C-alpha cells in the first residue's frame, strides 16, 4: 500500500480518484482512457471501467499492458488481480475480428482459425455467414445486410468487431459553413469541436468512419454535427430525442450553414418533410403502424443518406438500434454528454454506432471557459399558515401542487432577482396559474406554450439583446428556448423527479457568457413538504455530476425586500 497515491480501485472495476491529491492529474491520465466518469461529488470522483470503456480504449490505440502499468503506478491499494485480468482480456479482445470489404464481398476475418471455429458455434453469428468456414480458414463471407447484426451479436459475445469495410458516400450536397451567422456573429468552431470532427472523419482516404463524440452539456455538440455534415458534403439524417431539439437543430443549421429552409426538413409527429438534411425524432421512427412494424422506417431509405447523426445517443431507443443495424454502410455520428445509459445497452451503441472517438471532460470545458461554471442552490421557502394547513389536509396528489404553488415563492424570486440585479434571468415553472400570478406580482413578462410563436420569438430576441433582463417561462416553453445569455435560472415548480429534465434545464444556462460570468441555478422548495425530499434526490444528482450544491433558507431580510 502506498498512501501517497490518489487512485483507489475496487474489485468490480470502479475507480475512485481523489481530486485534491497532488498526483490527481497524472492519475486522471491513467483513468480517463479506460473508464467513464460515473459521478463526481466532492473530491472523490468515481469512474466505471466496463467492457465498452475498455473496448473504446483499445479502439483509441491504448494497450492493455500500458493501461495496467499506469493504473498500478497510481493505485493506493494496488490493482486487484480480477480487475487486471479483465483489462487484459477485454482490451485484447478488440480487433481479433475484423470486417473488411473484398472484391468478393464483405468478409469477417479472425486472427486465428480457432477463433472463427468458436464463432461458428454461435447460432446468431452463423446466421450472418455466407458459408461455413473450413477448419484452417481465418475468414468467412458475410451477408451484406447482416453487417450490423453480426457486429452486435459478436459484441454481445464479448468479441467486438473492428469494422474496416468502409462506407458509401451518400447523395452529394453542396454545403459550407457561413462566414457569419444570419444573426451576424462570426461562425467559428472552437478548437475541441474541430478536434472532435477530425477524430470522427479520421485520417483515412475514404473519410473516417463511425463513432461517438462525448462533450459536456452546453459545449456545443450541434456544432460538431454541423461541421461533420459540411465536411462530408452528403445528405444527412439527424435523429434527436424530442421535437424541441429538432427545432434547435434546424435553426442552427440555417443560421450557421449555407443550407436553406428548402434543404432542411423536419420529420416529427406534426411535420413529415424529407429533404437533403432531415431532422427527425427517435419517437416518430419508433411509432408502429398496427402489426406492420415501424410506420416511418422508410425514412432511412427515402434518400441516399451519407451520414446519420444520433443526437443524445445515450437516449437512443432499442427499436432504433435494430434499424441502425441495417445501416452499417452509412457513416454514423453519435453525440452525447455521457456514454452511460440507464438501460445498460452501451454494448449496442459501441457495436452499431461505433467506439468513442473524442471526449472533452466537463472540467476542462469549464476551465477553458467553454462552458459556464454553475452554482446550484436550493432555497427553502416557508409556507404561510393557510397554505400549510391546505397542504396538510390535501391528498397525496394535490399536495405536490400546493407545495409547488406556495405563494411565498414569489417573494423569494423577487429577492433572488435583486441579488442578481442586472443579470439575465429565467424563472421556470410548471403551473401556469402560478406563473401568471408571479408575472403579475413581479411585473415580469411571461412566455407560455399558448403564446403565438411570433410573439414568443419576439420576447426571446429582446431577452437576447438585453432589452428584457428577466423572463418567466413555462416548462413547455423553456424547452424551445435558446437563450445563451441567461445566467440565472430560478425553478419555482416542476416535476422534480426527472434527472433528465434537471440536466436539460441546467444545460440552458451553461452556455459561456459574454461577460465570462458564472451561472446560478436556483430551485425553490417549500419547507416541510415533500418537495424537500424530491429536491434532495435532484440535488444529489447535481452533486454527483460535480456541481456545487448548497441549501439556503429564504430570509425576508435579504436584499430585494424593498424592491417594488
Amino acid at each position, binding site marked *: 500500500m502506498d498512501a501517497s497515491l490518489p487512485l483507489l480501485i475496487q474489485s468490480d472495476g470502479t475507480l475512485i480518484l481523489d481530486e485534491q491529491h497532488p498526483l490527481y492529474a497524472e492519475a486522471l491520465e491513467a483513468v480517463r482512457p479506460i473508464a467513464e466518469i460515473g459521478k463526481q461529488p466532492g473530491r472523490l470522483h468515481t469512474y466505471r471501467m466496463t467492457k465498452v470503456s475498455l473496448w473504446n480504449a483499445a479502439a483509441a490505440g491504448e494497450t492493455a499492458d500500458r493501461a495496467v502499468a499506469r493504473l498500478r503506478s497510481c493505485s493506493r*491499494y494496488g490493482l486487484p488481480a*480480477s480487475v487486471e485480468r479483465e483489462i487484459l482480456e477485454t482490451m485484447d479482445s478488440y480487433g481479433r475480428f475484423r470486417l473488411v470489404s473484398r472484391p468478393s464481398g464483405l468478409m469477417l476475418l479472425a486472427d486465428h482459425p480457432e477463433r472463427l471455429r468458436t464463432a461458428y458455434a454461435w447460432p446468431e453469428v452463423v446466421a450472418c455467414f455466407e458459408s461455413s468456414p473450413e477448419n484452417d480458414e481465418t475468414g468467412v463471407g458475410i451477408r451484406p445486410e447482416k453487417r450490423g447484426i453480426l457486429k452486435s451479436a459478436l459484441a454481445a459475445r464479448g468479441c467486438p468487431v473492428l469494422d474496416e469495410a468502409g462506407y458509401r458516400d451518400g447523395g452529394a450536397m453542396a454545403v459550407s459553413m457561413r462566414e457569419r451567422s444570419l444573426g451576424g456573429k462570426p461562425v467559428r468552431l472552437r478548437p475541441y469541436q474541430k478536434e472532435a470532427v477530425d477524430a470522427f472523419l479520421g485520417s483515412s482516404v475514404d473519410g473516417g468512419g463511425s463513432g461517438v463524440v462525448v462533450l459536456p452539456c452546453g459545449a456545443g455538440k450541434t456544432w460538431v454535427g454541423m461541421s461533420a455534415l459540411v465536411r462530408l458534403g452528403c445528405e444527412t439524417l439527424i435523429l434527436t430525442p424530442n421535437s424541441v431539439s429538432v427545432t434547435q437543430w434546424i435553426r442552427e443549421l440555417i443560421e450557421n450553414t449555407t443550407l436553406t429552409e428548402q434543404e432542411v426538413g423536419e420529420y416529427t409527429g406534426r411535420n413529415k418533410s424529407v429533404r437533403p438534411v432531415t431532422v427527425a425524432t427517435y419517437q416518430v421512427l419508433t411509432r408502429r403502424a398496427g402489426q406492420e412494424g415501424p410506420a416511418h422506417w422508410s425514412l432511412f431509405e427515402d434518400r441516399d443518406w451519407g451520414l446519420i447523426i444520433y443526437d443524445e445517443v445515450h437516449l437512443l431507443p432499442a427499436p432504433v438500434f435494430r434499424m441502425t443495424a441495417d445501416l452499417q454502410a452509412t457513416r454514423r455520428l453519435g453525440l452525447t454528454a455521457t456514454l452511460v445509459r440507464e438501460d445498460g445497452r452501451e454494448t449496442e451503441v459501441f457495436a452499431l454506432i461505433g467506439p468513442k472517438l473524442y471526449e472533452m471532460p466537463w472540467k476542462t470545458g469549464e476551465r477553458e471557459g467553454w462552458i459556464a461554471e454553475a452554482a446550484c442552490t436550493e432555497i427553502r421557502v416557508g409556507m404561510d399558515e393557510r397554505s400549510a394547513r391546505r397542504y396538510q389536509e390535501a391528498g397525496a396528489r394535490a399536495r405536490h401542487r400546493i407545495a409547488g404553488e406556495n405563494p411565498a415563492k414569489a417573494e423569494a424570486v423577487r429577492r433572488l432577482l435583486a441579488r442578481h440585479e442586472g443579470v439575465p434571468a429565467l424563472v421556470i415553472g410548471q403551473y401556469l396559474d402560478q406563473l401568471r400570478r408571479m408575472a403579475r406580482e413581479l411585473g415580469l413578462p411571461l412566455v407560455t406554450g399558448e403564446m403565438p410563436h411570433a410573439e414568443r420569438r419576439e420576447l426571446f430576441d429582446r431577452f437576447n439583446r438585453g432589452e428584457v433582463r428577466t423572463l418567466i417561462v413555462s416548462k413547455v416553453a423553456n424547452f424551445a428556448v435558446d437563450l445563451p445569455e441567461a445566467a440565472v435560472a430560478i425553478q419555482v415548480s416542476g416535476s422534480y423527479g426527472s434527472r433528465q429534465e434537471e440536466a436539460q434545464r441546467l444545460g440552458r444556462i451553461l452556455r459561456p457568457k459574454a461577460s465570462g460570468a458564472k451561472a446560478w441555478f436556483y430551485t425553490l422548495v417549500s419547507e416541510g413538504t415533500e418537495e424537500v425530499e424530491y429536491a434532495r434526490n435532484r440535488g444529489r444528482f447535481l452533486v454527483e455530476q460535480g456541481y456545487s450544491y448548497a441549501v439556503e433558507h429564504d430570509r425576508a431580510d435579504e436584499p430585494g425586500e424593498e424592491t417594488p
Partner: protein
Amino acid sequence: MNARECAAGLPDSVRRAIESDPAVRRRREGGMELEQILSSSEWAAEWASRADRLLKEALRRIMLRYGASAFEEEKSEEEAIRDGRWTGAEWRVALAGLRLAGVLFAVRKPWGDRLYYVPADMAAIWQRLLLPTGAEPLNLQETGEVAAGAYPFRLPLSLELLSVWADIRRTAVALTAKGAVSKPSAAKIGSAMRLTAEEVEAFGLAHAHRDQLPASVALALDLGLRTGVLSRREREISVSFARADVWMNRSVQAADAELHRLAMCAYAAHDPGRLMAASAVSGCRAFSWYRDRDIVRIGIAPGAWEAWLHLLVAFGWAERGIYRGEAVFRLLTELSDERTRTSGPYAAATEERVAVMPDGEIYVPPGVGMQVRWRLESVCERVTADRLFVYRLSAPSIRRACAGGWREPELREYLEEVSGSELPGPVREALRDWYRTNGQDRIAESPEPEEDSLPPAQDFSGSGWICAAAAPPLDRQDEEPVSAAGLFPGLTDIPPIWLRKPGSYHATTRRELVRRALGWRTALQVGEEEGRLFVPEALETAGGGKWRVRGRWRNAADGEGEPDALPAERCSPLMIVLPDLERLTASGRLEG
C-alpha cells in the same frame, strides 16, 4: 481448551512442580499468574531455549503427529517405539517432563486411560520455536516473475463477517423449535456473502442442520458465537452489544489475526497437518511471496497444507501463484499477532479517515478500524462492500439511527470526528430534515438492548456452531502425581546397582534384568562400552532352560539400529538404562 483454561484446572501436585521451575518461579514472583505464564510466548521461548533435547524432540513429534488433539499415552508410546527412535521409557519420561514443564496437559478418560494434549492456542507458538520453517520470501526480482492465480476478489474475513453481523444486529437470526436456523434467515445471510458454501464445505467442517444451513453461513454464525459478538437464545441468534463493542475495538488486521487464531484452534486443532500449516503460515510476512515447499518441509502433509491454504484464500487472507513452475503464496494481511500493527492496508498503524461526500455517501478506506465501521453500519445503508466500503446516509437509515439512540448533534459530531472535517452543507441539511421528520421525541431512551452489561471477556473462545471433529474430551484433568514409581512400576523393588553400572550376573538375574527392561520398555547396556545400547523387544525361550532376547541395537546418532537376538550368554555385563531421570527431575519435580 486454551492454555489459560488448562492451567487453571491443574492439580496441585503438577502446579507445584511447574511453579518450581526457575523460569516460572521468577515470573510468579514478578506478579504473573501461572495461567498467564503458561500461555505466554516469552515463557515458551525461554523454555525452548533451555529445555532438554529429549523433551523438545518429543514435543516436535507431538506437534507433527497429534497437533492439539488429545492422544492416548499408551498408544503414543507404541507408535514412538514403532518409529524406532524412542524407547517406551524415554517417551513416557518425556511426556511426564513436558507435563511438569506446563507444556503438555493430561486428562483421564472415565475408564482410566490417560490422554495428553497441547493447548491449541500454544500450538502455533511451539511450532515456531521448535519447527521453524526458516522460509525466506522471494526477492524483488523473483517476485516480478510470479504469476498470481485467478481468484475472485475476497474481503478479509473480518470485514465479511462484520457485514453479516451488522445485518444480524438489524434482524436477529430466527431459530426453529429444533434449534435450526430458519431457511429464509440462512438464505438472506448467505446471499450477502462472497464466501461460498462450497469453499467452506471443501474444508470438511461439520455443522448441525447441514441440509438447510449453508456452510458459509454456519461459519459466520460459528465465529460470531466464538468471538462473543453473537449470542444464542432459545429462538434466535442476535448480537451481544457489549461483547461486540469489545470485538470491534481493534484494527481490521488485528481482527483478522484473531480470527485466524480462532479458526486455527477451532477448525484445525484436531488435524496436526492443518494445525501446523496454520501456525507455520501465520509466521510468514504479509505481501511477500513464499514457496509452498519451504513451509511444507517441516513435516506438513500436502493435503493438509492445500486445505488450509484454500481456506485462507477464501477468507481473503492469501493468494496463490506460480513462480517458475513452483507453487507460491502470499498473505494479504498479517496473521501473526505480533505483526498486526505493521504494514498493510488494513493495519492499525495506518488508521485512515472516512470521507463524507456532499451526496451523503461515506467512503471508508481499508485503514479504518472496526469500531467506526460498526457504528456506520448502525446509522447508514451499506452501498458497497469492497476494498473501499461505501455507505449512504438516508431517511430510513436515520430512522434506524434514531431508534438506536443517535441524536442529531451526536451523529453530526461523530461523522465530523471520523472524517476529520466539517460535514458538507447538503449532508448537514439532510440530517436536520430527517431528524425533524422522524421527531427527536421518538428516540429510544435506551439506545440498544443491554442484555449483557457484564464486563465482556477479552478472550474470545466461546463455543460455536461448528463442531470440530475429534475434539479432545478435556473435562477432567489427570490428578495423579507424576512419579518415578508411576513411570517405572517396581522401581524401588530392584537393586539400585542394576541401574548404576553394568554387572556380570547369574543367568537368572540377567533374565530378570531383561524382563524388567522389557516391562519398562527401556534399553539395556550390554558390555562395558557406554552408549552401546540394546533395546529388548521380546524374551524367547530356546529350550533346555536357555533363553535369548530379541531386539535391536541402538545407534547413538539417530536411535535406530540393527535388529539382533542375544542369547543369554551374550547379555553380560548388563545394566538397565533408564532415561536420565536426574536431568528431568533435577529440580525435584518428579515425585517419589
